[in-house]
């Protein structure tokens, strides 16, 4: 697997060299921060209004809770923003190699195809994690100002990271299908959005099909993480989703050699 790290390292270096990375990171941070502060100001207003009756509310079982009212929706928003942003990071993975004819260097080196894919995947994951890390200043803000529970924050970030992995896998697959980066971004975005929206029909019907779609949808597995529930079945779902998509990527790239 050493080769995968070489590939990932080169890829990450090349991200920091390209303007796309900086533009995408800036857009991501601006969007996220805007939504975060909108939620945050709502919350502070609500808590200010509720302050006089705080004791009564608590007795009745209600609470003004920073975890539930700020962090949880903010991480949910981050999941949506990442859906739009990630295809722009993953689009170059294979499309650029094919366009610039650099893929033959990787293919003629003693490197397995799975190592190449792993390297590309790791590079994108590192870059997106870095972006998410930058955005976590907002959580630091809440930790300093209030007293949120730390457990749900960690589980929320783990959920985001796992879902990010799934988006990246789909983006890398899209990139393996074409040598045009724009096409790769559009396909990657389409796949991610479809997997995200899959649970919509389930909300309007109780049919068996709806239930299945809900189980497949990426989003339905994120909710528990945001609430602080780490269920092994959700973790296994995300991991197997990634492995499956990356396996298809492997087959796509392998079959191209035969044509």
């Amino acid at each position: 697997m050493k080769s995968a790290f070489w590939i990932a390292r080169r890829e990450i270096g090349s991200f920091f060299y390209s303007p796309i990375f900086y533009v995408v990171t800036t857009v991501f941070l601006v969007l996220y921060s805007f939504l975060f502060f909108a939620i945050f100001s709502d919350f502070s207003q609500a808590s200010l209004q509720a302050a006089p009756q705080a004791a009564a509310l608590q007795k009745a079982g209600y609470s003004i809770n920073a975890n539930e009212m700020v962090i949880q929706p903010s991480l949910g928003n981050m999941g949506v923003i990442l859906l739009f942003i990630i295809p722009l990071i993953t689009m170059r993975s294979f499309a650029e190699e094919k366009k610039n004819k650099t893929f033959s260097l990787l293919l003629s080196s003693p490197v397995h195809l799975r190592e190449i894919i792993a390297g590309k995947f790791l590079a994108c994951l590192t870059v997106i994690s870095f972006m998410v890390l930058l955005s976590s200043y907002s959580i630091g803000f809440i930790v300093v100002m209030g007293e949120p529970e730390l457990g749900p924050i960690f589980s929320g970030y783990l959920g985001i990271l796992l879902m990010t992995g799934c988006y990246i896998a789909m983006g890398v697959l899209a990139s393996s299908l074409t040598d045009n980066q724009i096409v790769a971004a559009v396909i990657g975005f389409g796949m991610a959005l479809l997997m995200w929206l899959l649970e919509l029909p389930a909300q309007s019907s109780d049919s068996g099909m709806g239930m299945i779609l809900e189980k497949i949808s990426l989003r339905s597995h994120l909710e528990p993480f945001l609430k602080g529930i780490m269920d092994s079945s959700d973790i296994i779902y995300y991991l197997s989703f990634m492995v499956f998509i990356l396996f298809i990527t492997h087959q796509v790239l392998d079959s191209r050699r035969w044509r």
Partner: protein
Amino acid sequence: MIEVEHLTKNYGPRSAVKDLSFQINQGEVVGFLGPNGAGKTTTMNILSCILPATEGKARVCGFDTFDQSMEIRKVIGYLPETPPLYQDMSVADFLRFAAGLRNVPIKKITAAVDRVLEQCGLGDVRQRIIGRLSKGYQQRVGLAQAMIHDPKILILDEPTVGLDPIQIIEIRKLIQELGTAHTILLSSHILPEVTQICQRVIIISEGEIVAMDTLDGLNASMRHVRRLELKVRHPADGIQNKLEALDKVLSVQARGQDFFVIESEPDVHLQDEVARLALDQLWGIEELKPMTLTLEDIFLKLTTEEKEVKEALA
């Protein structure tokens, strides 16, 4: 070192390489010569394990390209027609990356990079960004990349294409130097290039080998003639004699009653005379055309005068 047996590669219904067989021995510098689209790149891609063959076998250092490709990849250095360079990296960083990919032990990477920088004359540009280098320097970086793990075999696809004359001379000199220690297979569509660098030539056209010999051998076997094919509708006695009696005809071969191959000097056009004779004699011309794709024709196509390079040399 390289053995190819009955190699065939089809892209859909079109076959790029048909039933190719040849051998390359250790220490040889072999030129793979043919016009554009002859199947040179396809063959090289199969040898460097990038493409699988449709049929047939290829072995490099005794390893099969299909079953033992990882072993082969360790011992070959491949420079594709477009050098695979990451435009945003510096020369030294790129070569370190290539060394890592080719399993050079981490402790030896710096030494390996220094070695190829020296060999390819890249010392002055080691910190430059590849995308800002001239085409000639980029080609050298491509060559350096192929040599970074000190491979036994170098496969170079059109190493001088797109370079200016001075750069071409430099790259050829470099390849000649490398040839003393490596087995090299290089492709080209320029005959003089191959005659300068290689000991042996494989000429390929439309996916098939048309000749394979040393250069002297090829020159000796070459008959510098032009051939015309004539097919007639009314076979008669004495056609061959009458054709031979024509001015400037070297020889006439009859292939059956109605089919004749007329040979002449390469710069003589006999179509008019042959046609006039055939009309006078009422043979009925079914077909009259210059014979295509003989070895000589291919050679003629390849013997493009390299005026610019000669001028630069002078």
